[in-house]
């Protein structure tokens, strides 16, 4: 199994968020998690990425035959996990280009691959940015600083396309996007889809799933997956809301 989450319970500041959560993802699959506010979707994304604010009460997560809890945040990224943040952090003074260059090389180093040189990286970055309709001038700016909501999300997808992760977790990437931006972002995601790359897409709305077709849809309520199935579930939620799952 590519990613297997077994009986995961997690708390933060004495509040239990995830409760015996189970989820399995195979290579090449696209899974969507839908759920109401406060159901624990972002917590799951953060726990997978390794955020250290949470206390793991029980359960295990296997990722590519590794016990995920044995890997720190950067090791998870270097192993091919990528979290597109719901609220990308503004980091004034850190220029996008050298930051991304350093990020890709840290991954290549772990994979015993040669580092990518400045020129090749600049070419790669330019071509990926152009695919996503990102202005070259934006690459001269500091990470997420002064970006609009849409720019931030687009920039998350740019990072994803550069780092080419094996498992991409998209945490409400559709929030704050207008319809044109949503199309650009989802096109970017679809371009990355191969038989080797898996996606975990967290969203409130079916709209995103009109553009990125999931293989499986899960409904998350109160820290657990309460129903799994195909894209018909998304349509059901769009029609009736989350009430009937609670």
């Amino acid at each position: 199994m590519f990613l297997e989450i077994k009986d995961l319970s997690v708390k933060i500041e004495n509040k239990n968020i995830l409760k015996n959560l189970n989820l399995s993802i195979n290579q090449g699959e696209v899974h969507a998690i839908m759920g109401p506010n406060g159901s624990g979707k972002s917590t799951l994304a953060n726990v997978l990425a390794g955020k250290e604010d949470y206390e793991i009460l029980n359960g295990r997560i296997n990722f590519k035959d590794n016990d995920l809890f044995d890997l720190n945040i950067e090791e998870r990224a270097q192993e091919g996990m990528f979290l597109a943040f719901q609220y990308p952090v503004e980091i004034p003074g850190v220029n996008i280009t050298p930051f991304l260059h350093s990020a890709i090389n840290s991954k290549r180093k772990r994979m015993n691959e040669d580092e990518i040189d400045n020129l090749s990286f600049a070419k790669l970055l330019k071509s990926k940015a152009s695919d996503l309709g990102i202005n070259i001038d934006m690459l001269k700016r500091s990470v997420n600083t002064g970006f609009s909501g849409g720019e931030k999300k687009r920039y998350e997808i740019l990072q994803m396309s550069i780092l080419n992760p094996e498992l991409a977790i998209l945490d409400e990437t559709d929030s704050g996007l207008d319809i044109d931006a949503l199309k650009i972002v989802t096109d970017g995601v679809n371009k990355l889809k191969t038989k080797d790359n898996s996606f975990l897409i967290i969203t409130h709305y079916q709209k995103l799933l009109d553009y990125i077709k999931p293989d499986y849809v899960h409904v998350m309520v109160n820290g657990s997956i309460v129903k799994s199935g195909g894209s018909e579930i998304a349509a059901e939620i769009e029609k009736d809301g989350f009430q009937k799952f609670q």
Partner: protein
Amino acid sequence: MNIQNNYQKNKKNIFFSNNKDVQNHREKLLNIFENDRFDKKNNESLKNINLKNFIDFDYKYLIPEEISVINNNQENSYSIVSVNGQCSTFKDDKIEITKILDEDYNDFSKNDTIENNDHFVNLNSLFLNSGFKIVIKKNNNIKIKISNIITDDDLTIFQKNNYICEEGSSLNLIEEYENKNNSSSNILNVIKLEKNSQLNHFLIQDNSPNHNLIITSHSSCKKDSTYTQKVYNFSEGYVRNFHYSELIEANSEADLQGIFFLKDNNTSNNKTFVKHLAEDCKSNQIYKGILNDSSKATYFSNTHVDQVAQKTEGYQLSKGILLSDNASYFSKPELKIYADDVKCSHGSTIGPIDENAIFYLRSRGMSKIAATKILISSFINEELSSIDDEQMAEIIQKKLVRYLSKVK
């Protein structure tokens, strides 16, 4: 040895000791020390200082055997090596450098600072043993680099330098303090900017742990003049940076900035004070500090706007990153405004490095240490990228890399 005994024993070797007026003034200062001592409770600027080092010292001064050399290799560019605070005399059509002489007591014995009860400035007046005067002549644009060298261990340098930028002149002044011996320097720079003159003053401080540096400056700006000061403190020994500026005529500007990088048990005390005494003047006071291990720092910023100083713009900002739970940074901004048409602001933020930013960078594959270092560099990126002088930018960058190499 206490201050009184030090003075009585060494007064013959201190400048202007034969002058009656100076003697009387010094007797008064000695009385102040007798009565006031160093009152830590009522003087926040003495916070975190180990006073013993400054009260009970053994006065020692050596006149350098070889007086400094002044080079004028490139046009409009001069390099000076000041040895034990002394400098040789040099004159051309653009600049005049004179070492301190006994007959110059009028220039050197006055207390020109805004604050009269600064004990360290008073000590400088009491024990004055070195210094020089530099005059930039009218309408010249020049660059001066001064390397401050101390020749022996245990020297106590009390130095006063006078800078005069004549009308229409422009000076880029780079001062380096890189002393590796066990000595202490108490330096007072008095800077006068005449009409339409400009001084960009850079101070690079990188002394060893056993060297104490107390540096005070007082600048006064006449009409249309600008004084910019940038302090980079990488010292492993104690440094006190107290800088005062008076905007005495209209449309003048003072920009006092500093960055300090502290580690181990080191301490640094910082103060900037801008007095707006004329209309249409601007000031900036910005200090940033990075504190590791058990280091401590203070920063006091003051803007005083006189009632005649309408249309004043005065900004203050203090920022600090604490890299350890044991580090501390005390910052206190003050504004005293007596005019009614002014724009003034102050701000202060001190805290640990942003954990969300660290998580974001690590989630892209950067190690925690690399993420920490990149965030420290970004914290001062604006200040570093604004250095126009390539050679200086390179020097500062190297020192930053050295500081970051110790960050765990």
